[in-house]
């Protein structure tokens, strides 16, 4: 079966600073991969590059998404093809109503998949259903996107959008950062409900604690712009007890 994502020898830089120095990673359909690593190791850059942020230059390597060259696609094409990024810092959009935003996002994705546009009433029903699924207060849908949302509400709103857009590959960039334990658990519950054979996850996190609630199929450790070690879920526990330093000292390339 064709993998969802195949990253080979990916190198990227911001200005003169080289950040990704040859990342290799393959994600199969329905798999959940966690990428861990110390601050500054390039985890969030990898997420941004996969979503199409143009402030990074690609210096080498390739990324294939369901066999296609992902790096050739515009950010919105990637989204319509089923790539979703949950932001570490979701952007506030004053004056842009959540409902209007969801309508445009959902219809652009549906149109691309050849599905008919949702009627307003069906969109509202779908948003109620998905909000309930991931524990987002549906009253937030009447507000402007992320404006005045608490930290927890912003993160939950990202998972809510994930549920609405039904992606093939969901990338979560430090979704656990800044959350208290209750909010963390509820976000994790939401993610678990969205796991399926058709959806792969790439979860970027600094701490092991999220992986207590979201059990990964694979764990990768990123150090200095490379995947330094890969393993099963037990690797996360080892990192928790031993820290990141030993990985850097004893690199075993995946």
């Amino acid at each position, binding site marked *: 079966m064709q993998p969802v994502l195949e990253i080979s020898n990916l190198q990227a830089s911001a200005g003169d600073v080289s950040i990704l120095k040859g990342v290799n990673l393959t994600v199969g359909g329905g798999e959940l991969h966690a990428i861990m690593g110390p601050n500054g190791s390039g985890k969030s850059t990898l997420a941004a590059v996969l979503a199409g942020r143009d402030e990074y230059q690609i210096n080498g390597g390739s990324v294939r998404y369901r066999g296609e060259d992902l790096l050739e696609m515009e950010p919105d094409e990637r989204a319509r093809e089923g790539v979703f990024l949950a932001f570490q810092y979701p952007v506030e959009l004053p004056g842009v109503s959540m409902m209007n*935003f969801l309508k445009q996002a959902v219809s652009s994705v549906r149109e691309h998949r050849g599905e008919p546009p949702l009627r307003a009433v069906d969109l509202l029903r779908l948003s109620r259903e998905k909000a309930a699924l991931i524990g987002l207060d549906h009253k937030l849908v009447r507000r402007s996107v992320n404006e005045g949302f608490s930290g927890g509400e912003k993160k939950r709103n990202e998972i809510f959008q994930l549920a609405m857009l039904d992606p093939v590959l969901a990338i979560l960039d430090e979704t656990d950062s800044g959350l208290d334990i209750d909010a963390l658990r509820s976000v994790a519950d939401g993610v678990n409900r969205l796991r399926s054979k058709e959806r792969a996850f790439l979860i970027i996190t600094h701490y092991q604690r999220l992986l207590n609630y979201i059990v990964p199929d694979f764990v990768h450790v990123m150090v200095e712009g490379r995947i330094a070690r890969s393993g099963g879920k037990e690797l996360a526990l080892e990192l928790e007890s031993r820290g990141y330093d030993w990985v850097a000292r004893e690199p075993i390339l995946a």
Partner: protein
Amino acid sequence: MPARQALEIPFVHAVEKCFAEHLHGDLGWWRDRCHKGMTCFRRLGFPTQRQESWKYTSLASVLRQPLATGGSPIPYPGPLPWVDGLDAHVGVFVDGRLDKSRSSLASLPPGVLVTDLHRAGFSRACNLGTLANSTRHPFVALNTAFLTGGAFVLIDANVFLDKPIHVMHLATSNRGRLAQPRTLVHAFRESRASVIESVHLESAGPSLINAVSEYQLENLTHVSRYELQDPAAHVSCVSSLDVTPGYSSRFENHCFTFGGDVVRNNVRVLQIRMDSETVLNGLFMARNRSHVDNHTLVHHAVPDGFSSENYRGILDDHATGVFNGKVLVAPDAQKTNAYQTNKSIVLSDTARMFAKPELEIYADDVKCSHGATTGQLSEDALFYLRTRGLTIKDARTLLLQAFAGEITGEVPHAALREALNQRVTASLQG
């Protein structure tokens, strides 16, 4: 003599010629006002860019054009499509004369009068020309010199009007390429009303609209004015508004500009009664070589006044925007609160915005603030929307609609607000 003034000479000669003809007409009780207006205009002349308040706005391209019209006159322009049917009491004034057949004023409640200025009579329209000052403002003087009619709106004491009154000025090109609509609104004690004003001039060649509005508001009134400006690309517009709010009254002005060659709006509010509130909002969208200049003056002459201004602009191509907001707080005007913001989005490298807040404060116990930002759409916001599947074009449109929506959203009348939002969208997609 500087070249700029030389350009105006044919225009001024034409004005003189027209004025001589104008005096042959039946001017009734305002003949003296016309004479005074012309005397003032002769003394003031057209403003030049050497005057501080016209520093960024040049009328040279307007004044270079001949005043007399060429070709066959357009007898009867229709209203702009998007300002028609706004769920309002509509008074249509063709060259300053009320056209009853085109108006829909039958459902006006008792105590509200929408009529011709010349029919209103001296006693009712005695404020004509007393709020708008001909001795200081050349365009007011020019408009006054050529008074042939106009709109008169009277709202009697204690009348609450839910539906807005729409004063729609239609100018034919029979009178040359200079249209000078005039509006006088008098709201009596404890009345409440909304007035929409729009001017439509249909002309084949470059033309100038010189509109003057005066609002006399008595004590405890609440009046909102909505000015809708959407002239064709070859039509320039100078619009002057003078307001005196009464004791404990509230006045709102919402000005929307979507087109035109050179557009200059002068808003002057004189707060000489205590405890009055003024809200001035504006939205301007300019593209190509359009130039939109909003000049506001709020003069707080007495204590306990409040004013708040919020102007937003979207500029594309080679367009230029100007915002000059002057707040004058007199020594006696203690406990004044005056706020002002101006935000502009510049979409091209060649569009420009000049923002100039001017706070002159002579009292010591006041709260005044101002802020101006000019920038581009946020890259973070655009990227966020694109990662949700929106094309760059749709993402930009959505963000600009939201930006403009902060001003249109303040309009309480649903039909008008919806028409404005649609006009904004059409402008973004045009």
